[in-house]
Each structure stands twice: as structure tokens, then as C-alpha cells.
């Protein structure tokens, strides 16, 4: 088949994205309008703001993606849009727009699971580098503000199948980064700020207890126990431990002063953050990140050994974390396991990954029914 151009649209959380991807292997354009500036004063994503900002951004973002790609509406082969999981109101903006566009242009529309998109972001990255052979099975860690999932992924014919072998029992990893940044008065988004500050502190200074799941599985449950081993995460405890540390070390006054000082700066830079953090805070930040990274890496590698996988993918917003990347590269190499990450622009939410994940569905003729809608809690189904 000649080259297939798919327009992807993503609006599941705080980025409005549109991208054109050729045949699932080449990003022709990738436009992301981030609402982080809008959300910064609130310390997180606010649903009503998110929907309103998506509405405002979606038409110009799609137009720019087409212009950057040198494509027109008519020259596209198909449209793809994120169905879920995400914020219902935000998802609906992308879906309604994509449906209307598909109807008007008489082009097929493909519904994509956001988590599947993150997995395909890695494949897209590798194919762009000319690397087409991936050893199966793949173990993919999808780690972001709303998700911490481990999937075994395999290509079956033209389609893909996914098996969940682990997820967080309470907070997502990115949520722990955001909440700890907020309780330290560091602002939003917390992940990149903590990542950059962590090199200024001593990561051995604060000892966090091992991040084990606090409550055991019961044996008497109604459903039979799953046979395959699971590798679940838990990040509620470390957030609480950070809060206790702040309380016992009487850091609140210092934190409040920093919160006020940072709020007064329009675009605080790393130097501003460093200047406003005392040694205690920097050590806490560095130690927190070290504990998070060690837990994510060690559980993922344990799952990789248990399932004897051939390849490791690490993807999602937290995959942009520098220490996480370095640690995965070092530790996976010691086990002879190839590990792949998307580039930073494909790690965080984007539409190119949606268009890439849609390509195998396009080949298989797996199009969305006219009445499909947003599914806030959409699970990545096992085929």
C-alpha cells in the first residue's frame, strides 16, 4: 500500500494535540497546545478550564498540523481520535470535532485508547530511526499523572494485543510527583520541577520506607485469583511520608514563603526555584525522586524477568524524567534487555502517538461506529 496519512487528535487531559503521521512510521507534523499556563495557578488540571481551552484550541491546532504537514483536509486518508481514558468533557471536545470532520469529509474515523497511544509512541520513535524490528513480547511501562500501568504487548497479525500485568493500587506516579511538589510549594507541573531540582540535593539524605503495597490481597475473595504474577505499585505512602517529613522538620513556614515568592514570579526559572529552596528541601526532593525511580525501575525489571520479555518500553509523561531514563538504561543494560523511550515530545500527551496507534487499525478496517462516545474510564482491552 502506498503511504497512508492519518490525522490524529488528542484532548484527554491538558494538552490539545493534532498531528499527521505517515503510515505509522513518520511524524509529518505534531502540534501540541498546552494548557499548563492556564492551570498553573490551580496546581493541577481543572476540568471546566480544560474543556473550554480545548474548544478554543482545537480548530487552530488542527489547521496548523495540516499546514505544517503540507496536507489538506481532502488529502488525508483517515482521522483518529482519543476515546479514553481521560476527563469526559475534555475527550468529548476532540471526539465531537473528529466525528463532524469525518462526516463532512467522508473519511473513516478510528477510535484510539490513550494508553495504547503511549505504547505506539515508542514504536513510532524507533521506526523514524529506521528500526523496524522489535523483539516480542514487549513489556511497556506507561507512567504519567493519571496512569502507572504495566502491559505485555504483542503484535498479532495486523492488530495488537495487550495484557495488564500491573497497575497502581492508589496514586499514579506522576500524581505523587505533583502532590509532593505542591506540598513543598514548588508549583505545577511537579514532575519537571522535581526532576531539575533533584540534581541539587543529596538523594541519600532522607530515607523513605520501601514502597510496598500496604494491604495484603485477601484469599477469600469472590473472584478466583489470577494465575499470572502481578507487579502492582503504590505511591500513596511516599506522599504521606514526605508530608510527615515536612511536619517533623518544621518546614511549613519556609514552604509558605516559597509559595508566595514563586507565585509573584511570572515564569519562574530553575535558578528561582533553587534560590528559594533550603538544603533540607533540596535533599528531600532528591531523595523522593530517587525512591520513586528505584521503585519504578525495580518493579518493572522484576516483571520483565517474570514474563521473560525481549524488549522494554518506558512511556508517558514521567518517562521524560532524566533520572528514570538513566536508571532504566543502566539497569536494563545489565540484564541485556533493550529499553526504548519516546523522545520528550512524544513522551508527554500528543496526537502523533494517536495517529500512529491508528495505523494498524486502518489496515485492519477497524473503524469507529458512528455512535461511539468518550469513555472516561476506558480500559486497554485484551485481545
Amino acid at each position: 500500500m502506498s503511504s497512508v496519512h492519518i490525522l490524529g487528535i488528542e484532548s484527554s487531559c491538558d494538552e490539545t494535540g493534532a498531528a499527521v503521521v505517515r503510515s505509522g512510521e513518520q511524524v509529518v507534523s505534531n502540534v501540541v497546545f498546552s494548557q499548563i499556563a492556564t492551570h498553573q495557578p490551580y496546581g493541577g488540571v481543572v476540568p471546566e478550564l480544560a474543556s473550554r481551552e480545548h474548544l478554543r484550541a482545537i480548530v487552530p491546532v488542527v489547521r496548523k498540523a495540516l499546514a505544517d504537514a503540507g496536507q489538506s483536509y481532502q488529502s488525508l486518508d483517515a482521522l483518529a481520535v482519543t476515546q479514553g481514558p481521560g476527563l469526559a468533557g475534555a475527550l468529548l471536545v476532540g471526539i465531537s470535532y473528529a466525528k463532524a470532520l469525518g462526516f463532512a469529509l467522508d473519511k473513516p474515523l478510528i477510535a484510539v485508547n490513550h494508553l495504547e497511544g503511549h505504547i505506539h509512541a515508542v514504536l513510532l520513535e524507533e521506526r523514524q530511526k529506521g528500526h523496524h524490528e522489535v523483539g516480542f513480547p514487549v513489556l511497556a511501562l506507561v507512567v504519567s499523572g493519571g496512569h502507572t500501568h504495566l502491559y505485555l504487548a504483542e503484535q498479532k497479525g495486523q492488530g495488537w494485543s495487550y495484557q495488564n500485568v500491573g497497575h497502581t493500587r492508589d496514586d499514579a506516579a506522576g500524581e505523587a510527583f505533583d502532590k509532593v511538589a505542591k506540598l513543598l510549594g514548588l508549583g505545577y507541573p511537579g514532575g519537571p520541577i522535581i526532576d531539575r531540582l533533584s540534581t541539587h540535593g543529596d538523594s541519600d539524605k532522607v530515607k523513605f520506607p520501601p514502597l510496598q503495597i500496604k494491604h495484603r490481597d485477601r484469599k477469600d475473595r469472590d473472584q478466583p485469583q489470577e494465575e499470572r504474577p502481578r507487579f502492582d505499585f503504590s505511591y500513596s505512602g511516599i506522599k504521606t511520608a514526605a508530608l510527615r517529613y515536612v511536619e517533623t522538620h518544621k518546614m511549613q513556614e519556609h514552604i509558605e514563603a516559597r509559595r508566595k515568592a514563586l507565585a509573584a514570579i511570572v515564569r519562574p526559572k530553575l535558578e528561582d526555584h533553587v534560590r528559594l529552596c533550603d538544603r533540607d528541601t533540596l535533599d528531600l526532593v532528591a531523595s523522593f525522586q530517587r525512591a520513586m525511580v528505584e521503585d519504578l525501575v525495580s518493579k518493572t525489571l522484576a516483571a520483565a524477568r517474570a514474563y521473560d520479555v525481549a524488549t522494554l518500553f518506558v512511556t508517558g509523561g514521567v518517562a521524560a524524567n532524566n533520572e528514570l531514563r538513566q536508571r532504566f538504561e543502566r539497569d536494563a543494560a545489565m540484564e541485556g534487555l533493550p529499553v526504548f523511550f519516546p523522545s520528550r515530545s512524544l513522551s508527554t500527551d500528543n496526537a502523533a502517538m494517536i495517529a500512529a496507534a491508528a495505523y494498524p487499525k486502518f489496515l485492519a478496517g477497524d473503524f469507529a461506529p458512528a455512535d461511539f462516545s468518550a469513555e472516561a474510564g476506558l480500559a486497554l482491552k485484551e485481545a
Partner: protein
Amino acid sequence: MGTREVITHSPEETITFGRTLAETLAPPKLVLLRGELGAGKTTLVKGIAEGFHAAREEDVTSPTFTLVHEYRGPQVTVYHIDLYRVDTARELETLGLDDLLAHESLLLIEWGEKFPRLQLERDVEIALERMGESQRRILITGR
């Protein structure tokens, strides 16, 4: 219902208590969950959702990012809602909580006490307080 107080000594015990608590939370009900970060609000919801056969405990996770998690049981739908990042009454309105409160719905709302409207409309309030590393005081107040 009045007020009752329970002390639990571990997350397991909090989950077990949540399961028995479910029996007293016949829908429709709007329940406010109070307690600071790490007090055990999500842990208690794990037990309540299990009590209604709406979810397995390991599948109940924090709704901070996604705001609303829905667990459908045979008779009861449990909504776990987190208003941690919702600051104004106008933002609250756009969440459409009124649409969720049907005959078979139980709404468990974290950080709902920020909003006077929810304080006024709540049927039950559950306050969790940390007394030690894993010890929690759970205070349940009815109408």
C-alpha cells in the same frame, strides 16, 4: 444515625470496616470524606466499593487526576470523587454531580467540605484522622 467512632489499626482493618460500613450507606446518599493527605480516604473507599460488590479493592485508585471514578455494582453505583484541585463553585457545577445522584448512586466525595453547598446537602460525613503510623480514628456523622 447519629455519630459513631471507630479506631482501626491497619489499612486492612480500614478496608474491612469500609465493607461493613457499606451496609449503613443505602443509596441515594451524598457522603463527604474528610481527612488530610494520607489519612486513608481512598483506602476506606476500597472497602465501601467492595461492600457493594462494585469493585475489587485493588481496582479502586485515587481519582485526583481523573476527578471522578465510577464503580458499578449489581444494585449500587459507587462514585469516588476528588475535589482536591477544584477551587471554585463554578468549576464544581461543571462536574455535574447532580446528574450522578440517582436512586442507586452513592457519592463519596473527598475535599467536598470546601464547598458550603455540599456541606449543606451531605447525608453523611466521614472524618478520618491519623493517630499513629497505621492507626486511624474514623468518625461517622449522619444527618
